[in-house]
């Protein structure tokens, strides 16, 4: 009789885990439990469907449940697992017990909810489930004003999208600059300008005090800068690991409250793996555990968990976190750490800054690309960076995260080869320029730079 693998969660990590386990070991009976009716859609595309940059929500669906069934997976949609018994190796869903030999927990995240008066009113919207987003999209037609709360990337994307949709948008964030938990002020500034160009009223240094209601529905957001009228408040605070089931079965949680896994995505319980937003993984520079990364991280972790549950021996590396997103028409991105985080962690660094163009400067569409790199004093090994500009930011951040992981130095980057082809690349690569500026500055000030202990 074949072994049975149960995957809890139908998001990126869960679908990847189930698909890969099934592919690695076709004899394995793989069952996926998901509380939602849909699978394999892109939640990250939701803001862009609201902003009509993606014409229809159906474009966000990449596959169907039937396709997974046809591939041999046992799909249990709209079925919430309410209990797990590790001793008996059973899960409970819809009051029925189902046995398993191996288990992968991909229970994802829940949004942090504001701890202020009025947080239970109607009209507070959280971006997650696509069905709810589709209903919300219809409601948007009758709305005029929105307040977006929270200084995370999703808040920036939603602000831009709702402004494109024609709503009057106030974006509030209690930090001193846009996305201050992630982004340095010099990189946040052009992003703020891009949002303001779209008509978003960006209010940094503004604290949420509560929600004012009328007839049980939000009518205004009370802030340290006064009351902001609205038809809807979109809440974009932190992603928190959804560890309810994991805690109930006693899985070990780490220093940020997410499930602890090793490099094979094994949890503290034998025969139980976990992946995605419910787990913490180490940052490649500090080895400090972090959580709530991107969809591509969740998918890759799911692949590792699925392959290992099916009998393979795959390891996942500590992360260097390339990231990036659009603020209006502008792109910002980075990898590992920026100046603010380096200062906070007390990591010594030297800066290398510069800018170039994304194509030959005479070619239509050429955009300025700003690069800021952080390197370890002494060795000049790359430890972080932030970029902003037009096209090509994403690819540069991916590249930089990879070469940082492999130990590249400013010297390596200053003399890197690059493509010169007028429509797609300039003679001088902006990364090269930044690294060369950094080396020149380093040579000028070498005597004053402390070497790390």
């Amino acid at each position, binding site marked *: 009789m074949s072994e049975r693998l149960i995957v809890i969660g139908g998001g990126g990590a869960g679908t990847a885990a189930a698909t890969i386990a099934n592919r690695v070991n076709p004899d394995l009976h793989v069952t996926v439990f998901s509380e939602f009716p849909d699978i394999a859609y892109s939640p990250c595309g939701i803001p862009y469907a609201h902003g009509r940059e993606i014409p229809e929500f159906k474009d966000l669906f990449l596959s169907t449940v039937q396709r997974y069934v046809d591939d041999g997976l046992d799909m249990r949609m709209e079925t919430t697992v309410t209990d797990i018994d590790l001793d008996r190796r059973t899960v409970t869903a819809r009051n029925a017990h189902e046995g398993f030999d191996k288990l992968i927990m991909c229970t994802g995240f829940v949004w942090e909810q504001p701890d202020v008066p009025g947080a239970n009113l109607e009209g507070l919207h959280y971006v997650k489930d696509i069905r709810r987003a589709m209903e919300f999209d219809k409601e948007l037609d009758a709305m005029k004003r929105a307040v977006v709360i929270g200084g995370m990337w999703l808040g920036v994307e939603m602000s831009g999208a709702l402004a494109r949709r024609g709503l009057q948008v106030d974006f509030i964030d209690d930090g001193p600059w846009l996305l201050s938990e992630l982004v340095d002020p010099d990189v946040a500034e052009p992003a703020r300008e891009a949002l303001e160009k779209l008509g978003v009223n960006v209010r940094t240094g503004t604290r949420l005090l509560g929600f004012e209601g009328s007839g049980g529905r939000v009518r205004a957001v009370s802030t340290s800068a006064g009351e902001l009228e609205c038809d809807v408040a979109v809440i974009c605070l932190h992603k928190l690991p959804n560890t309810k089931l994991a805690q109930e079965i006693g899985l070990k949680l780490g220093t940020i409250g997410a499930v602890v896994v090793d490099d094979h995505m094994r949890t503290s319980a034998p025969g139980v793996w976990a992946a995605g937003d419910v787990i913490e993984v180490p940052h490649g520079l500090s080895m400090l555990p972090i959580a709530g990364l991107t969809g591509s991280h969740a998918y890759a972790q799911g692949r590792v968990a699925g392959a290992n549950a099916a009998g393979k021996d795959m390891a996942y590396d500590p992360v260097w976190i390339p990231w990036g997103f659009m603020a209006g028409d502008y792109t910002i991105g980075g990898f590992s750490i920026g100046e603010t985080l380096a200062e906070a962690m007390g990591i010594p660094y030297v800066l290398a800054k510069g800018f170039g163009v994304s194509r030959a400067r005479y070619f239509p569409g050429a955009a300025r690309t700003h690069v800021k790199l952080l390197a370890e004093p002494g060795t000049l090994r790359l430890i972080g960076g932030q970029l902003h500009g037009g096209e090509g930011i994403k690819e540069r951040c991916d590249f930089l995260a990879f070469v940082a992981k492999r*130990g590249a130095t400013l010297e390596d980057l200053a003399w890197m080869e690059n493509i010169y082809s007028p429509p797609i690349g300039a003679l001088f690569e902006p990364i090269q320029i930044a690294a060369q500026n950094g080396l020149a500055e380093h040579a000028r000030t070498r005597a004053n730079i402390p070497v790390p202990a």
Partner: protein
Amino acid sequence: MILRELQQRLRARSEYALRLAAMNDVGRRYPSSVSKPALPRVGVFWRWVFVPLFRRVPWSFKQQAMRTFKMTAAGWPADARRFGEPWRAPARPQPQPHEQVAEKASNSGR
């Protein structure tokens, strides 16, 4: 359980205090891009004792301390491509028996 909660609390508070202090310092370098934050303040101990002390300690010592107090990730090989080590190909495990079966099935057009 208590140790885990203490670790979580210690990490959350220390990170928050360090982040606020860093925002303050980095913000001064870019004054035109910064507003006065409305973030909740931290206690006197964290701002005026912990942050200055933390900043005086060399990074290598801080790393060692974080390892000692089990604040870093466990179960991850410390020597897996250490920082700055030249690139090397990931180890390729030997195919398992069921993979060979799967490969045959795949080759037979299944």
